[in-house]
Structures are given as C-alpha cells and as structure tokens.
C-alpha cells in the first residue's frame, strides 16, 4: 500500500513550519517599516503648488523674516498662510508680468483664493498650537526643517505622534532662547560656541523671562548685557496692557540680570530652559486632551 505522503513531504512540512515563522517575522518587520515610511507619512514629498513659491529665494535670498508672511504664528494656533495681498506688497511692482505669478495676479484681480496644497497636514483630531511652541522656545526649524534651504517646501519630519512625543518626552533637546526662534541656522550651544542665559526676574506665560546671549556677558561688560536683555525682551502682548509705571530708565536698571549661567551643550541649556519656561516633563503629560480635544 502506498503511503499517503512521499519522502519529500517531511522536509516540506518542516520547511513550511519554519517558513511560516519567518513569514510572520518578515511581515512584522515590513509593517513596522511601512508605517513609518514616506508612503504613509508623505515625508519629503513636494507637492506641485499652483505657484512654485520658493522659500529659499525669499528667506535666504531676500532676507524676509518668517513673520513677514506668517503673521499670526506668535498669537494663534495657526501660523497663517499669507493673503494674496502680502504677495502683492512687492509683486505689484516686481515681476509683474512673470508667467509664474499669473495665478497670484488672477487671485488679486478676482478675489478668489489661491488653492495652495497643504504640506503639513495634521489629522483633524490633533490640535497643534503654534503660539505655545513659538513662545516656549521651539524654533521654526525644529519642526519644519531648514525652510530657508527649500526651493519648494516639503515635510521635513513625519509629523507622526511618535515624533511629537519624542520631543515632548525630552523637550530639552530642542529648546532655544526666545530670540533664536526664527533663526533658521541656530545650533545648540557647544564648547566652541557657548550660550549664557539668565532669568530676567520677570515671570510670565512665555519665554520672555529668560535672557540669553551668545557672547560672554562678563567680557562685554554690564551695558552690553543689559542691552542684550532688551533685545530679547520682545513684546508679545498689547503694549496697552503693560505696566504703565515702568519707564525706560527703570527697565534698563532693573532688567540687568544678576548672574548669567554658561551653557556648553544643548541638553544643559534645554534643561535650564525647561525649568525657566515651566515646561512639563514626560511624566506630567498625563492628559490625552493636551493634543486631542
């Protein structure tokens, strides 16, 4: 009587067992890399915009500041895509017959919006707020990358929750002095380029309570330090609400920080700033409602 299975079946049966194990592992590895791939995250993809607006040209080439166009970045959840009028501020006189700018002129003439393609599109259940990040020491480049080097804007980071949390679990690695928020080329302090910071004694909801300088305040003298404080002391709120009793002289006298601390690494500076800015640590991020409302 012939056997049900022939000799090769043993090897086949065992191989298939081992193989299914491998397939399961390979599937896991594949899915794991797939969920983080640009195919899912659109990281690095440059969509075709109606107007090929070059941040590189306008920021690096012309020296426009971020806020010139993104006016609401400091005071609202959204940085703000500028209205056509902002383009026309210059392009009413410059490159007025360039073919590239035809959609802009069209929009200006008709009042219809230009339909930009959104590059940094978070899911609608995420409530990301630009205001708090910008005011608590996160630079534009930390999330958006070197926009000043992007001819066409693309997503530098995955924008996945993992990426959010990687920073929120250790904010220190990305925090910078308030004056450097819009500095695209900012790099954390190092041995060669230390940073000195001090508390201004002013408490408040934003990062303005810390003054930082990149030159040694002791060497430059008290006056320079004082000026540096002033330079960083950017107004965020309606000046009407300021303390009216404060006069120029009194501010200058009181705002000179008593003692600067020198930082030679990003982690040190970040930890210091976390404390000064009252930034929550990983353990305190208990509420999902911080980001999902």
């Amino acid at each position, binding site marked *: *009587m012939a*056997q*049900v*299975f*022939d*000799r*090769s*079946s*043993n090897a086949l*049966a*065992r191989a298939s*067992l081992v193989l299914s194990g491998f397939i399961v592992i390979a599937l896991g590895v594949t899915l794991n890399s797939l969920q983080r791939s640009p195919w899912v995250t659109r990281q690095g993809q440059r969509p075709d915009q109606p107007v090929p607006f070059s941040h590189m040209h306008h920021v690096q080439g012309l020296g426009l500041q971020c806020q010139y166009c993104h006016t609401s970045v400091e005071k609202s959840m959204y940085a703000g895509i500028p209205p056509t009028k902002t383009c026309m501020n210059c392009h009413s006189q410059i490159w007025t017959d360039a073919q590239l700018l035809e959609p802009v002129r069209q929009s200006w003439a008709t009042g219809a919006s230009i339909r930009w393609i959104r590059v940094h599109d978070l899911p609608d259940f995420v409530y990301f707020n630009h205001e708090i990040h910008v005011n608590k020491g996160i630079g534009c480049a930390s999330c958006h990358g070197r926009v000043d080097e992007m001819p066409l804007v693309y997503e530098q980071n995955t924008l996945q929750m993992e990426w959010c949390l990687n920073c929120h679990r250790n904010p220190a690695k990305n925090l910078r002095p308030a004056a450097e928020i819009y500095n695209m080329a900012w790099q954390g302090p190092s041995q060669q380029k230390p940073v000195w910071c001090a508390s201004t004694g002013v408490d408040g909801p934003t990062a303005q309570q810390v003054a930082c300088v990149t030159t040694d305040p002791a060497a430059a003298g008290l006056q320079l330090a004082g000026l540096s404080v002033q330079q960083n002391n950017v107004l965020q709120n309606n000046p009407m609400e300021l303390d009216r009793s404060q006069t120029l002289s009194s501010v200058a006298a009181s705002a000179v920080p008593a003692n600067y601390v020198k930082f030679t690494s990003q982690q040190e500076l970040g930890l210091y700033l976390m404390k000064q800015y009252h930034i929550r640590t*990983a*353990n*305190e*991020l*208990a509420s999902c409602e911080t980001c999902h409302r």
Partner: protein
Amino acid sequence: MPPREGVYGLLAEFNTPDELVHATKLAHGAGYRRMESYTPYPVEEAAEALHFHKTRVPLVCLLGGLAGLTTGALLEIWINVWGYPLNLRAMPLFSWPAFVVPAYECTILFSGLSTCFGMLALNGLPQVYHPLFNAPNFADGATSDKFFLCLEANDPQFDLVETRKLLERCSPVSVVEVQH
C-alpha cells in the same frame, strides 16, 4: 539527505500490551537497543521496558516559562517606567502589583507554546512520511488496537534471520520486514 534504501527493520505485531512489554524486555535483554514500540495509547510499562524514562519536555517548559516571565516583566517595566511613563492617579510608575497579571500571562503563554512545540520538536514531528507506514498492518492497527515492536536494521545486533527468530519466539500475530 539522499533517500535510504533497503530494510528499515522487522515489525512484530501483538494483540495485547502485555505481549508487547514481554517481547520488548526480551529484545532488550538480547542486547537490542535501536528499537521502538508502537501503541494506540500511552503504555507506561512499554516505555519502562525500553528503559526510556526521562524526557526533556519539562525542561523546555521551564525555560519557556522563565523566558516568558522575563519578557513580560521587562516589557511592562520598560514601557511603564521608561518608554511611556505616565502619571496616572499618582500610582508609582513601577506599579508591581499591577504588573503581576500580564507577566504571569506571558509566563503561561511562553511556557505553554514551548511545551507543545518542544514536544513536537523532540518527537521529530511533523514526519508525515515514515518507513513504518509502508507496512500494511501497521497503518491498520497501530492507531487503533494493535501493539507493535520494531527492531531496527541499524542496530549492530540486527540480522534478518536471527532477529526474526527472536521475535517469533514471542508469538506475535505477524512479523513483517519493513522497507525504507
């Protein structure tokens, strides 16, 4: 592995476990070592006659259990203390009473799976082709109501004639030559 040819062994068929145990003891006494008995249900005395006692299955189970316990405990500790620390109801991050349950389940899972797969691996299963299935009476009875003793050809004592004589002394139902 190239297919082996020739005689695999001599297969004696018995009606009762007693006869099988008797024959096994006889063959063992005669110096045969490469042999195996086949029964439709576990017969402890048959294993005894083969002088086969210890299995390594409990060891595999223990190792699997330890691996599971370690995996489960480390997973929980890593996740709740380092990987994903959350301050919930002011419970400590290292909340060992709560960690007991999943670590325990992991222990059971790992040891259970390793027991089953360890048993199969130690038994060399799956082995859907086996020379014994070439013997027609084997397939008919080994998993139902017959008891078999197979003296294998690779035993140094094995001799087609002498071994058959030995087996026939035990009054088997039949003695069959099994081909590879």
